[in-house]
């Protein structure tokens, strides 16, 4: 199935959604040669910042290539086509850049970035919609239809489309969840995050995906190796989310923080240089997720790099 749409989502904030998005995009492009499209639906624009830098996010917005520009088409009543709003190069890995130079575009990352302007625009959209007797539900449905049409022509061009969703149920977030084939849930091994996974399961299960367990890939992030964290992680696997697919447990790491801080839009690094001591974690994340994709879609993927 080309262009599987995967929402990276959790109703709780601060659980590593954007970091997981970027690690997956890099890992899938680097190890499996997948062409990845990242759509940032979160007005905090964290994954956009991590992939493009602050300057890159600003430049994209100035070129009219930002999520709020695409939503502007919806507000203007025009049919959406996401293609013109996409930044074709969101790659920061030197190996992928060199492969592209040699006309071997196996493994690439493009992005439709967000900008903080998106939140203001969404507020304006909600106000306008509700003034016309619309409801949050009808707005989310209309946006889902619009985004589905906007993305559909791109699906054959990409192997995976990652939607970085905001940590709340805004109409845009609900639209993103509604059009997703699978759900990637980053979470932290602590009690508040565990409760957050219950809220996520209950809401998505009731309104979006009654078959959530088979479509849900869970990643425990920012793991500090303490007895308490080990116990909570074990409870997540054995009790609360025992019917889900689990990715590897990603450690809390200064190296990950550094990897997410790209020096400049024209700065590239090798995979080893970018991820250093956590490169094995990124590889395992890509491996496990690819297994999950194969299980879901029947498509198999060959590793192209070690």
């Amino acid at each position, binding site marked *: 199935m080309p262009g599987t749409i995967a929402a990276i989502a959790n109703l709780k904030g601060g659980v590593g959604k954007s970091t997981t998005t970027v690690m997956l995009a890099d890992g899938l492009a680097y190890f499996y040669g997948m062409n990845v499209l990242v759509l940032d639906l979160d007005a905090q624009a964290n994954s956009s910042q991590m992939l493009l830098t602050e300057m890159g996010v600003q430049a994209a917005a100035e070129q009219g290539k930002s999520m709020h520009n695409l939503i502007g088409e919806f507000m203007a009543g025009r049919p959406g086509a996401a293609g013109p709003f996409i930044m074709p190069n969101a790659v920061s890995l030197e190996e992928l850049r060199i492969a592209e130079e040699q006309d071997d575009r196996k493994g690439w990352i493009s992005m439709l970035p967000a900008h903080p302007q998106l939140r203001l625009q969404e507020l304006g959209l909600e106000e306008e919609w509700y003034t016309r007797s619309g409801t949050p539900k009808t707005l989310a449905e209309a946006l889902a239809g619009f985004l589905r049409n906007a993305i559909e022509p791109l699906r054959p061009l990409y192997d995976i489309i990652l939607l970085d969703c905001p940590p709340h149920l805004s109409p845009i977030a609900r639209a993103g969840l509604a059009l997703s084939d699978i759900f990637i849930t980053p979470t932290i091994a602590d009690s508040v995050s565990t409760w957050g996974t*219950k809220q996520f*399961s*209950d809401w998505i299960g009731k309104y979006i995906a*009654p078959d959530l367990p088979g479509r849900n890939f869970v990643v425990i992030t920012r793991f500090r190796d303490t007895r308490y964290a080990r116990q909570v992680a074990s*409870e997540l696997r054995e*009790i*609360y989310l025992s019917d889900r697919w689990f990715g590897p447990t990603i450690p809390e790491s200064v190296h990950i923080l550094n990897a997410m801080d790209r020096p400049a839009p024209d700065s590239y690094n090798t995979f080893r240089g970018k991820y250093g001591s956590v490169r094995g974690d990124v590889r395992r994340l890509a491996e496990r997720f690819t297994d999950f994709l194969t299980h879901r879609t029947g498509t198999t993927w060959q590793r192209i790099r070690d």
Partner: protein
Amino acid sequence: MAEDPGLTAVEYLDRFFDELREEVRANPRLAARLVKALGGSVVFEDEAKAEVSNPYVVAASGSKPKFYSVFAGLKPGQLRQVLRDNNLATRIDMAGKSSAQLLDMLYERASSKVNERKSSMF
């Protein structure tokens, strides 16, 4: 060990497994983690059984008799330890409680937490 040129590969590994065996004997928590990592299932007896058992996991099985069979053999101090280690009670909560009361508290609070955190849909 690597500095001893006289060791065969088997002897070399034997030393490692001997160390591991000793540690597993002395440390039931490590033993439980290793068995779980290997996907196995083994029986722990008496105090070790309670020490390696997670009250949330046992409560999630839904069987009160099973829960009591795992934890009823513990002395009051051990029950207090389990309650404390699992964030299920403070010293104030446990003050003056008998073994039976501590066991009831362990069951009720662990069961309640599991119900609060488990999805009502799945």
